[in-house]
């Protein structure tokens, strides 16, 4: 197998005995050794554990036992997932003092049950309050397509490790766009499922009202394989759905016949740069999406998401702000202190608005099955960049990278971010579906990939 093999290709080759899980794992560990000095995506490599797991997969194969759909597939997780034996850093300095986790997060367990091989924990923006992938404690993760540029965040190591060919699959979290932004900047497929679809147990939280977990990969099929393996109820996460798993792989090849796809206009076009608009137009044309719709009050939705985020984040970290304020990244600290001071009346109003907005947007899905929107206003910015142009004005970069992702995660809609291999840098488009219809977004993503409209480009590293 080579560095750019997909998870599906690896699992098939392992199952057919054309390669072994051990050989795949050793090759992935060698790539991490070779490339991660520059990409800086891993904060811990669990080599011994990975080799032991790979041997178990190979033993099962040799014994003729059935292998899972991810047999021998290397994967890694954002370092806010509990990994047995590691402190759960969540991108922070403060959490280095935590006792090592005693058990894995359930999503890791579920991927390993499907045959996956965990290779380690990945760099991320501090406490997930980030869109850049920069981190003052661990150094910034670097974009494999141009290492002077951001991966996007906060799942920066997840984006960089998959785009850089270190692993075919990584898990991230997405509160306001933290899977979709690195997917866009790094040229990957990313799935933010419906709010409540995948258990968040034993991961370090950020904003309970808005936190989601999901996969990043180099193909839509790999997203679907990982997503299906991770579904299922979990009493440990009160938000996790009790719905039975609704598998996406069986319908992945059903094509787009009968699906009504619309393009989000208004707010979602005003702030988009030329690459974002060009990518959106390409995808819309390929899908024959002529219908334009407007998500009502999208700007207020983004604002309300911002307020709920900063307030819940401030509350989550209040004790650490009291006792260890100097140990935060100063930029995170000042946002969290400010968040802790938002009057409660404004947060309740934002949550009331959230319900109103949800009702309005759900009505749109009576007339369409999916909505297209840009993922980010622009391609990956330079590391250290502080400002960006938005509607002709220079505005702070960090807060505005997520203007197109925030109004969607705000009401928990499932989204697949698909990559357009533009040169010199890729950019993503969001395929947004109604709640619990990840299958539709994945079908459309797979169709676009088959039609060679979208593709995860290989960087020359």
């Amino acid at each position, binding site marked *: 197998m080579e560095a750019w093999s997909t998870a599906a290709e690896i699992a098939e080759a392992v199952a057919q005995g054309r390669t072994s899980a051990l050989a795949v794992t050793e090759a992935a560990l060698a790539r991490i050794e070779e490339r991660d000095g520059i990409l800086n995506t891993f904060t811990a490599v669990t080599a011994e554990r990975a080799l032991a797991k790979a041997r178990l997969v190979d033993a099962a194969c040799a014994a003729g036992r059935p292998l899972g759909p991810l047999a021998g597939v290397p994967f890694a997780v954002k370092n806010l997932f509990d990994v047995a034996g590691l402190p759960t850093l969540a991108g922070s300095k403060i959490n280095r003092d935590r006792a090592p986790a005693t058990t894995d997060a359930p999503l890791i367990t579920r991927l390993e049950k499907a045959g996956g091989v965990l290779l380690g924990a990945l760099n991320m923006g501090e406490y997930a309050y980030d869109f850049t992938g920069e981190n003052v404690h661990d150094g910034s993760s670097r974009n494999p397509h141009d290492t002077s540029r951001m991966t996007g965040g906060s799942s920066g190591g997840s984006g960089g490790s998959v785009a850089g060919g270190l692993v075919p699959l990584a898990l991230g979290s997405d509160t306001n766009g933290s899977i979709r932004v690195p997917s866009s900047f790094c040229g990957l497929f990313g799935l933010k499922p419906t709010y409540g679809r995948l258990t968040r147990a034993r991961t370090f939280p950020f904003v309970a*009202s808005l936190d989601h977990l999901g996969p990043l990969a180099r193909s839509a099929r790999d997203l679907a394989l990982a997503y299906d393996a991770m579904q299922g109820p979990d009493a440990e996460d009160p938000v996790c759905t009790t719905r039975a798993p609704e598998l996406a792989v069986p319908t992945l090849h059903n094509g787009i016949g009968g699906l009504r796809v619309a393009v989000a206009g208004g707010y979602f076009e005003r702030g988009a740069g030329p690459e974002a608009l060009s990518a959106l137009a390409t995808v819309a044309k390929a899908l024959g999406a002529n219908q334009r719709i407007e998500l009502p*009050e999208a*700007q*207020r939705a*983004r*604002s*309300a998401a*911002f*307020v709920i985020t*900063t307030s819940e984040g401030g509350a989550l970290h*209040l004790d650490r*702000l*009291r006792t260890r*304020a100097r140990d935060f990244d*100063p*930029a995170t*600290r*000042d*946002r969290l*202190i*400010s*968040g*802790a*001071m*938002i*009057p409660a*009346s*404004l*947060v*309740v*109003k*934002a*949550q*009331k*608005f*959230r*319900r*109103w907005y*949800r009702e309005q947007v759900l009505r749109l899905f009576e007339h369409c099955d999916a909505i297209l929107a840009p993922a980010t206003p622009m391609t990956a910015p330079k590391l250290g960049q502080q400002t960006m142009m938005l509607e002709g004005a220079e505005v702070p970069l960090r*807060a505005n990278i997520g203007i197109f992702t925030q109004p969607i995660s705000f009401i928990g809609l499932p989204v697949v971010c698909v990559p357009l291999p533009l040169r010199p840098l890729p950019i993503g488009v969001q395929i947004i579906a109604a709640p619990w219809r990840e299958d539709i977004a994945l079908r459309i993503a797979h169709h676009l990939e088959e039609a060679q409209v979208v593709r995860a480009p290989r960087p020359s590293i």
Partner: protein
Amino acid sequence: MGEIDDKALEAYIKTAAAALGIPLEEAWMPSIRANLDVSLRLASLAADFELPDESEPAPVFEA
């Protein structure tokens, strides 16, 4: 919602920090003030949207 000037915002930050038990350093003030200023503006945008008294907030607690 009304505008709040820098001086009033700084006074609010100092009072809120004292109430919340967050130790503040003077050097942090410009950044905290800038963050809070943006947050309050965005909060107003959402809060000024007229909704009936009966409207329910989004999270639902199940007993």
